[in-house]
């Protein structure tokens, strides 16, 4: 069934893009490589000896615990060295100097501890974009008149580090005609950055906003706390990038593109509410996160892949990651959006989607009921 799906993808490739461009040659390569586990022998989920991650991915993910608290130690130390000596009251200039130093040093320390270079993170985003662009251009299940727009939207997303984001916000303030000294505008910009990333940039958070992804360095070092090595950290981050890029083209942006996915999720969950605006946005972004992550893990042994999926799902097990209004629960997102994702099932060598446990994708319910 997978062969036919990929053949369908390949045959529809021609309408979407220029075959001859170097980028398309590269992305066609990626698509071919995706197709490398067609004949894998998957485990029977009813087999008592099946790996825990094939039986219940959410339970497995929640059983993987952090081994250290590097993040907490770095946060406390940075606050002690910089914020605790800030005069009260502080001038705007003093505040900005402290914020700049604390955030820059945190970033430097995070990339030193994890050994992940900033350029490697940019490359990771670029790879995630390539994988998504390939899918967008090749899948026959997106509205044709939206393909180019979605492709270009993903292509234009860039990554902003702390000080870059602050500089951009100051420019945004000026464009809005906000009066005030540069120091005053900068203080407001730092406050906004700190709201999302914490005063030292060490919150476990990332966000997509108006064509940019901001990755708080806290999210990177939190992966090190699982004992993850450099490659594992990069692999886990690929889910974050896929998910955040997904927000650029999620169900709130292109509802018509996800009509079939919506029906599938409503049937699978037995609830119309599953596709309320907010949860639809998260679930559709998880779909892209799953595509990017599975591509990164295509040559990783299943047990190692499962571990990386657990790192990537950091926070999904927390009690507070559940419903608030229409947000989808962590367990549903892990077990259904990720666990039943056909490409994730492949890298884990777990049972492929079935009529009883289908995969909800752009093409709808798979396999068809």
């Amino acid at each position, binding site marked *: 069934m997978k062969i036919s799906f990929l053949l369908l993808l390949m045959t529809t490739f021609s309408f979407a893009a220029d075959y001859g461009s170097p980028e398309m040659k590269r992305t066609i390569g990626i698509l071919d490589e995706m197709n490398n586990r067609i004949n894998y022998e998957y485990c029977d989920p009813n087999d008592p000896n099946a790996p825990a991650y094939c039986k219940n991915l959410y339970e497995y993910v929640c059983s993987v615990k952090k081994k250290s608290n590097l993040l907490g130690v770095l946060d406390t130390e940075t606050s002690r060295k910089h914020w605790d000596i800030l005069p009260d009251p502080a001038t705007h200039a003093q505040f900005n100097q402290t914020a700049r130093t604390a955030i820059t040093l945190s970033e430097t320390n995070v990339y030193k501890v994890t050994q992940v270079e900033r350029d490697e993170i940019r490359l990771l985003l670029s790879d995630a974009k390539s994988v998504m662009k390939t899918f967008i251009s090749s899948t026959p299940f997106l509205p044709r008149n939206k393909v180019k727009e979605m492709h270009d939207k993903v292509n234009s997303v860039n990554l902003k580090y702390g000080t870059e984001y602050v500089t951009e916000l100051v420019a945004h303030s000026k464009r809005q005609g906000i009066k005030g000294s540069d120091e005053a505008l900068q203080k*407001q910009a730092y*406050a906004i950055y700190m709201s999302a990333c914490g005063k030292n940039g060490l919150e476990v958070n990332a*966000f997509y906003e*108006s064509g940019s992804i901001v990755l708080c360095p806290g999210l990177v070092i939190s992966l090190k706390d699982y004992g993850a090595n450099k490659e594992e950290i990069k692999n886990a981050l690929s*889910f974050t990038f896929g998910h*955040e890029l997904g927000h650029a083209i999620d169900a709130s942006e292109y509802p018509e593109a996800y009509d079939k996915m919506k029906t599938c999720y409503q049937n699978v969950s037995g609830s119309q509410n599953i596709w309320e605006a907010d949860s639809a946005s*998260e679930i559709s972004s998880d779909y892209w996160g799953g595509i990017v992550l599975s591509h990164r893990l295509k040559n990783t042994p299943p047990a190692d892949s499962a571990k990386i999926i657990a790192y990537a799902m950091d926070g999904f097990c927390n009690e507070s990651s559940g419903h*608030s*209004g229409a947000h989808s629960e962590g367990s549903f997102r892990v077990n259904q959006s990720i666990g039943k994702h056909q490409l994730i099932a492949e890298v884990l060598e777990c049972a492929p989607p079935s009529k009883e446990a289908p995969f909800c994708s752009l093409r709808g319910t798979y396999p068809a009921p």
Partner: protein
Amino acid sequence: MLLYLTLIFIPFSFAIGDTSLSIEHPRNPSHQKDSYIVNCKKNCDLKVTTSAKRQGTSSVVTFESKINELIAIAAADFPNDKKIKAHQVLYTIKASDGSRNVELTLGYPKSYLGEDYKKYSDLIVKLEELKSAILLNTTEEK
């Protein structure tokens, strides 16, 4: 009878002059939510839930004026009618000075334009001051 009196008394005890604040901050991609809660009567009870849990108490003086300032900014025609997508929610805030109640959902900054951006920035600065004060007056639970 006892139940009846209790039912009358409980809402009454919350009704007059109690200052309170709840800040909720979802993180991505997990949607794990951090929360900062202040409930003031004779003193202010403080509770923080982030990756760690923190608790503490503080005098009413420390928080009452800050929360009142926040309410004043929020009450002054803050653009709260925006439809903010879930992944772009930065804060959900509930604040009360006992007579005025405000509920706000704040998004990420670039959707606020012109004068709205000024109000948004002022509110964020005030919220960061409040969060710092809450953290300063709480200790981590063992």
